[in-house]
């Protein structure tokens, strides 16, 4: 009995016997034949697993009592085992999924079994003609199953498929005939051994015919119109089997025959794969039909696998499975799940997909699948793509890398846009049978399980550092539904505290400073989240995940670890942003730019050829320039630098109010950290280069425009967002100085930014919580209602503007000193100008919200909730200490930077001295304190003379405005200034990126135009594809 499960031949025997018997058994009753059907599928999966597990060396199965080439043989090695396991598990679950579809038709069940047999055969057989037969079995079974739906869509799609299939089989058979003529054998191994014989016109024609047939099965661009129609027109369960099953067979068949292909022409296959990946995803952009979109994605992913195959078909097993297998597995898991979900939702247009959100479980699997396809960690595609891109990088295939990354970005955009529609929700009820839900759930679980395994195996001995936080976060997200909010928050905070303890034990110097910024800052901010009575179930898990990934960023030593944490951070922050009420559009922009940033990082790391971050230091200068540019671009996008900042206002404003604080105060420092990492390692190349100089200018520009844009915002959170952008600009410039003082400044400004931006966002969160609006002109006079919030905002503004005595003063002093020390006088002037502009919005902030007269509707407003006040008090306390005793922390920064370049900052007491002057925070604080007390006493003495005026005691010149609010001074406060600066603040960057979007959509539409829907046109494309291949191969 055990032997049964160890012989792969039993897959065929079981399936065929069952399929043939089905007709007879059906006479005994439906139950009997259903039992037989599912029993057979189960046994097939079991046999595959059993055979794979007992595999000690590749198994050759002879038939008919003769040894190949006399008879046909099958092979079941490690490669075959991997792919057949996938296929048979998909078949079992796919069969279950199709229960409704198959239960009424015994013929359909027989077809399904034979479909699986065909795919297995395509994978295992080592005989060329036998391969033809299995291809035919697979195709014919598919045609039949598509025909089960007899509507016009399914019929016309199926018919186009048959036409294409007819052409393919004619090509393949002709190829087989010519191959037999040249080699005198049909055994694939023998043919490969004799491949030199095939190097004449007949042999090459034969090879071209065979490969055309198999490539067309993989639906290459542009000869794939019929494939798209099939994905769109057929039942979702069948489409899933085609996407993950039939394609698998075709892929493996191609893999078997690839050695026949002249090695010097392998680039043709790569080109076909790349073009398919790129164009499918480009065309996917315009798609609104869910299944057709999945079709584009499917075809694209198979193109990517094909590209990988052309590079690694001769690679050793682990590498092959790591890259080709990984990419395939990713497509396999995600696409099956998505097609199945499409069948449950039963909506063609993606706009109607809101209905899916009624099932939490399905939505979770959906987003897992989408993330997997995009290539986010920890899903299989991430690891495979990373390895692949790294290999491409070491071979200097810059063009391929660019095309892959851009193609992936397209795919991400259309998939996530789809996710937005899902989140939109719907009134309609989602009907979902258990038989359909279970397979989806199982695939979700398998994906999660494999991802967990991959973290463990890919990150090496360090993996548990990354694994456990993720596991903790995932658990926290899932128990979210069952335990109260406060308890979850408590778990998250204790998790973060443990993490911050762990990380601090393991890092030092600059990394320690960043670890403290990320984790301590995060911890204090976490207190604020208590103010919400009911948080979304996943919030705390995600929050923890985001902070943990930042901790991991600091810990990482290899480029992979760094990139892994970076992507996890992207993922977590995206989900946090999108859980805001109206954040869907903003979140899409955010993730698109974040993924763009990740793409630059990936390209940079790939071209660096370095496995460790340390290795970046060893790059020759020409290479270092390119690598630095790419990596810096990645980090700058994340910091919202000028030009790529358009995601900033949306993401900051639309995220939930406490989350915005995390993003602005903590997350934006990830980019700073990244910038520091590369600046440190590539210091020698970058110092005094044009690159650093341009970076400096970019920083100053960012600061200026951030401030300008902030001044004209009506939305309080957008104002803060642009302000953050501006402040990051100073940091960028400071890093770009590449001097000791510059870097200390950068760190100083970053820490200061955490302090005051936390204060501002929390204070504003309290205000919004109480007055329920983000429009500033609707507020006013809240100083008496919310005094602590006012003080907090006031202190923040003082700290931000650089007015003594708070921390900002030191920051500004350091910055101007550093800029002038470096000789960047013009930049210093512009920075000064930007600070002036910044005063505009800061004044507006305080004035519009807290000063003036209170609106009548706000007469019952109370102070912000205690949970928001506590962290503000802590931050205010920190700020006071930091302002009074700057040496306490600035010296640490100076020492940390001193590891990399000689210090130019000296200390005596609380006095810091540079070449240009000195600063004593303690003294400044005392002087200002004295002045403050004097003014206060004066004010208190003169207070009685103030005359009170009733709020609406205003006389209009005979006219009554329809919307009185707009006449408020706070409304469009800086309109005159805006007029003056008009041309400066036109949304040029937004217009540019809108243009990019529009152009890619136009292109998308243009290319999709080749899919006319006419089956004959598709046949013609297949013929042209053959001729092209023939021309390319025959050219030499």
């Amino acid at each position, binding site marked *: 009995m055990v032997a049964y499960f160890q012989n792969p031949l039993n897959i065929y025997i079981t399936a065929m016997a069952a399929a043939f018997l089905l007709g007879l058994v059906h006479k005994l009753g439906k139950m009997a034949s259903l039992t037989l059907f599912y029993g057979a599928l189960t046994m097939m999966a079991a046999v595959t697993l059993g055979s794979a597990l007992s595999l000690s060396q590749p198994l050759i199965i002879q038939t008919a009592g003769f040894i190949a080439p006399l008879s046909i043989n099958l092979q079941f090695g490690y490669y075959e085992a991997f792919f057949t396991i996938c296929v048979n598990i998909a078949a079992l679950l796919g069969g279950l999924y199709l229960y409704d579809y198959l239960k009424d038709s015994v013929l359909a069940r027989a077809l399904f079994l034979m479909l699986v047999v065909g795919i297995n055969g395509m994978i295992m057989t080592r005989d060329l003609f036998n391969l033809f037969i299995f291809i035919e079995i697979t195709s014919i079974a598919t045609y039949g199953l598509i*025909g089960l739906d007899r509507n016009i869509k399914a019929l016309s799609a199926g018919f186009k498929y048959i036409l294409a299939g007819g052409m393919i089989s004619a090509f393949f058979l002709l190829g087989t005939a010519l191959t037999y003529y040249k080699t005198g054998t049909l055994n694939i191994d023998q043919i490969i051994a004799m491949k030199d014989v095939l190097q004449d016109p007949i042999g090459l024609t034969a090879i071209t015919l065979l490969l055309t047939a198999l490539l067309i099965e993989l639906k290459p661009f542009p000869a794939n119109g019929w494939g798209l129609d099939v994905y769109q027109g057929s039942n979702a369960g069948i489409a899933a089997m085609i996407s993950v099953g039939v394609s698998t067979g075709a892929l493996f068949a191609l893999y078997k025959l690839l050695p026949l292909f002249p090695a010097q022409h392998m680039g043709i296959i790569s080109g076909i794969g790349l073009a398919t990946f790129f164009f499918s995803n480009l065309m996917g952009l315009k798609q609104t039909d869910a299944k057709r979109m999945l079709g584009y994605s499917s075809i694209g992913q198979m193109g990517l696998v094909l590209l990988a195959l052309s590079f690694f078909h001769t690679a050793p097993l682990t590498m092959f499975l790591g890259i080709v297998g990984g990419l395939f597995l990713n497509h396999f898991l995600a696409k099956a799940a998505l097609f199945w979900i499409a069948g449950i939702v039963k909506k063609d247009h993606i706009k109607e997909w809101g209905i899916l959100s009624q099932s939490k479980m399905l939505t979770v699997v959906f987003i897992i699948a989408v993330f997997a396809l995009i290539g986010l960690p920890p899903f299989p595609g991430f690891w495979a793509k990373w390895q692949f891109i790294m290999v491409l990088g070491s071979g200097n295939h810059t063009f391929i890398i660019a095309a892959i990354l851009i193609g992936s970005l397209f795919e991400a955009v259309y998939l996530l846009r789809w996710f937005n529609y899902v989140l939109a929700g719907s009134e309609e009820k989602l009907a979902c049978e258990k038989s359909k839900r279970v397979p989806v759930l199982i695939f979700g679980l398998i994906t999660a399980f494999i991802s967990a395994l991959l973290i463990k195996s890919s990150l090496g001995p360090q993996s548990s550092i990354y694994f456990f936080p993720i596991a903790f976060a995932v658990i926290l997200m899932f128990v979210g539904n069952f335990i109260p909010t406060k308890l979850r928050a408590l778990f998250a905070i204790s998790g973060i505290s443990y993490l911050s303890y762990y990380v601090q034990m393991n890092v030092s110097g600059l990394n320690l400073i960043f670890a403290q910024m990320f984790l301590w800052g995060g911890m204090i901010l976490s207190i604020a989240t208590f103010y919400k009575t009911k948080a979304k179930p996943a919030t705390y898990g995600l929050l923890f995940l985001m902070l943990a990934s930042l901790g991991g960023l600091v810990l990482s030593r290899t480029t992979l670890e760094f990139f892994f944490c970076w992507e996890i951070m992207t993922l977590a922050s995206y989900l946090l942003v999108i859980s805001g009420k109206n954040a869907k559009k903003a979140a899409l922009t955010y993730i698109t730019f974040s993924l763009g940033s990740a793409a630059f990082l990936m390209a940079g790391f790939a071209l660096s050829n370095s496995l460790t971050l340390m290795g970046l230091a060893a790059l020759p200068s020409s290479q270092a320039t390119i690598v630095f540019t790419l990596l810096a671009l990645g980090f700058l996008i994340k910091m919202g630098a000028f030009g790529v900042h358009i995601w900033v206002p949306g993401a900051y404003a639309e995220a939930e109010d406490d989350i915005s604080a995390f993003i602005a105060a903590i997350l934006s420092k990830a980019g700073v950290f990244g910038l520091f990492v590369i600046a440190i390692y590539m210091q020698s190349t970058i110092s005094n280069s044009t690159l650093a100089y341009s970076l400096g200018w970019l920083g100053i520009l960012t600061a200026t425009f951030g401030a300008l844009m902030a001044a004209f915002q009506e939305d309080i959170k957008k104002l803060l967002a642009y302000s953050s952008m501006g402040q990051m600009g100073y940091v960028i410039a400071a890093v770009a100085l590449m001097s000791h003082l510059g870097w200390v400044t950068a760190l100083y400004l970053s820490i200061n930014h955490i302090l005051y931006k936390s204060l501002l966002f929390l204070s504003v969160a309290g205000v919004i919580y109480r007055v329920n609006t983000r429009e500033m002109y609707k507020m006013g006079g809240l100083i008496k209602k919310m005094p602590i919030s006012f003080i907090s905002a006031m202190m923040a503004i003082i700290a931000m503007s650089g007015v003594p005595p708070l921390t900002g003063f030191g920051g500004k002093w350091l910055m101007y000193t550093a800029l002038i020390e470096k000789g960047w006088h013009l930049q210093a002037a512009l920075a000064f100008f930007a600070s002036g502009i910044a005063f505009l919005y800061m004044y507006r902030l305080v004035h519009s919200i807290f000063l003036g007269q209170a609106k009548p509707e706000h007469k019952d407003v109370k102070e912000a909730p205690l949970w928001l006040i506590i962290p503000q008090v802590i931050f205010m306390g920190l700020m006071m200490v930091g302002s009074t005793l700057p040496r306490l922390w600035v010296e640490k920064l100076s020492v940390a930077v001193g590891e990399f370049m000689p210090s130019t900052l000296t200390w005596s007491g609380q006095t810091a001295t540079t070449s240009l002057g000195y600063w004593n925070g303690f003294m400044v604080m005392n002087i200002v304190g004295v002045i403050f007390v004097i003014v206060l006493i004066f004010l208190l003495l003169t207070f009685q003379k103030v005359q009170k005026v009733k709020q609406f005691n205003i006389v209009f010149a005979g006219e009554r405005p329809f919307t009185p609010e707009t006449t408020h001074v706070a409304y469009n406060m800086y309109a005159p200034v805006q007029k003056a600066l008009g041309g400066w603040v036109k949304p040029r960057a937004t217009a540019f990126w809108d243009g990019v979007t529009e152009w890619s959509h136009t292109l998308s539409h243009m290319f999709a135009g080749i899919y006319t829907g006419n089956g004959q046109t598709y046949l013609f494309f297949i013929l042209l594809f053959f001729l092209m291949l023939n021309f390319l191969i025959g050219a030499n």
Partner: protein
Amino acid sequence: MGLYLNQYPLASIVLITGFMMILIGLWGMLTKTNIIKIIISITVVETGVNVILVSIGYIQGRTAPILDTAVLQIDALSRVVDPIPSALVLTSIVIGLGTTALMLSYVIKMYRVRQSLNIEDFGVLKW
């Protein structure tokens, strides 16, 4: 005339016929708008491929690979044609029948839905 023709091996003549059938069939597949005509064209292509396969197995002047008890095995080596292409073509013909039947069933059902046999009427899915 007869002598001249005899210089051309049978196999080559049949091979050319096969290729020409493929070309004729492809022309039909790509230009005819009636779907039944397209299917007829496909069968022509299939027959063409089969003809080519048989011509590849043929060896001038030899007989079918059926060995009577009288024929010596050694002798047979120089007297019969290759049995393998025959076996392949046999299979291919049967498969051809299967696909043709399936295609025609599609045609019948498509006709039921659209009352048309013109392939241009079945482009509901595109782009």
